[in-house]
């Protein structure tokens, strides 16, 4: 991408914040993306193959335990994607770096797909384990609500014509939404006691899954994290290019 960079530069920040400049960001992501793609594919393949082919069945759950390699990483990423959007929104509100707003926009669809995967694998898992596809368990319910927040966030981005207005409004929505998502989590907990297991990745030994399952799971989680970053970086680049196209067209129209 050729950007007219020879113009008298307005103050350009250096250090970490310099990557908030779209050009610099694109250069950076262009360099790092191939490695990310390869790494994430490798981790995913390794983790999933390991988990699927080379782990034993659980004595209670049978072979369904293999679903954990998809379910848990996607559930983790679904939450963390929202968290990343929250941070990016805050950066946009405070420092007004466009890349940050666009990164939030780029992350949302990835987050939805992660949420969907968690929901779908959970539902499929629920059928043999609890005898039902869906139960109004707090964990599942709050995931469904998270899904709705993602949908609303994306719909708001799509609906607003002016990109900066859209960035501002979605950022406000993200902040308010986070508060309400947390509130909903507690409300849902109060409303119904659940079937779902507790956090077994936590360090307290009692509940922890056996090591045979644990290591491939870690590899899968790493794969999902890397994939997430690859996708978000790539998509942010796409958003930047779209925005630049728009800006150029607008400028040409003005003449």
């Amino acid at each position, binding site marked *: *991408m*050729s950007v007219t960079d020879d113009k008298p530069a307005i103050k350009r920040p250096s250090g970490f914040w310099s990557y908030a400049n779209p050009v610099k960001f694109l250069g950076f992501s262009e360099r790092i993306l191939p490695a990310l793609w390869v790494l994430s594919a490798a981790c995913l393949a390794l983790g*999933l193959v390991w988990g*699927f*082919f080379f782990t034993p*069945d659980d004595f209670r759950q*049978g*072979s*369904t335990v*293999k*679903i954990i390699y*998809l*379910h848990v990483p*996607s559930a983790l990423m679904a939450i963390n994607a929202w968290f990343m959007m929250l941070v990016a929104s805050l950066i946009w509100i405070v420092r007004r770096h466009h890349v940050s707003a666009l990164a939030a926009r780029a992350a949302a*669809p*990835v987050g939805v*797909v992660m949420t*969907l*995967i968690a929901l*779908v*694998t959970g539902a*499929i*898992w629920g*059928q*043999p384990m609890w005898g039902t596809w869906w139960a109004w368990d707090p964990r599942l319910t709050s995931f469904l609500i998270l899904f709705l927040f993602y949908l609303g966030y994306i719909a708001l981005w799509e609906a607003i014509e002016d990109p900066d207005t859209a960035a501002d409004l979605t950022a406000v929505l993200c902040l308010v939404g986070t508060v309400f998502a947390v509130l909903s989590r507690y409300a849902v907990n109060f409303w119904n006691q659940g079937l779902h297991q507790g956090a077994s990745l936590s360090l307290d030994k009692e509940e922890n899954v056996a090591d045979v399952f644990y290591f491939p799971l870690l590899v899968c989680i790493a794969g999902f994290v890397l*994939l997430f970053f690859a*996708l978000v970086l*790539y*998509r942010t*680049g*796409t958003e930047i*290019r*779209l925005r*630049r*196209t728009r800006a*150029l*067209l607008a400028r*040409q129209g003005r003449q």
Partner: protein
Amino acid sequence: MPDLGKYADAVLSAYGASLVLLALLVLLTLRRGRRARAALEAVESREKKDG
């Protein structure tokens, strides 16, 4: 192929659905990216031509 026992359906469909979703996400991302690149190049070349 490991023996999945009576839960083969569940496990396979979970893997299938997830992988399809992931693949869709990646493909759509790449397609959108390529289109954006092409559109930008078209506009930029017009920009150069016009001065």
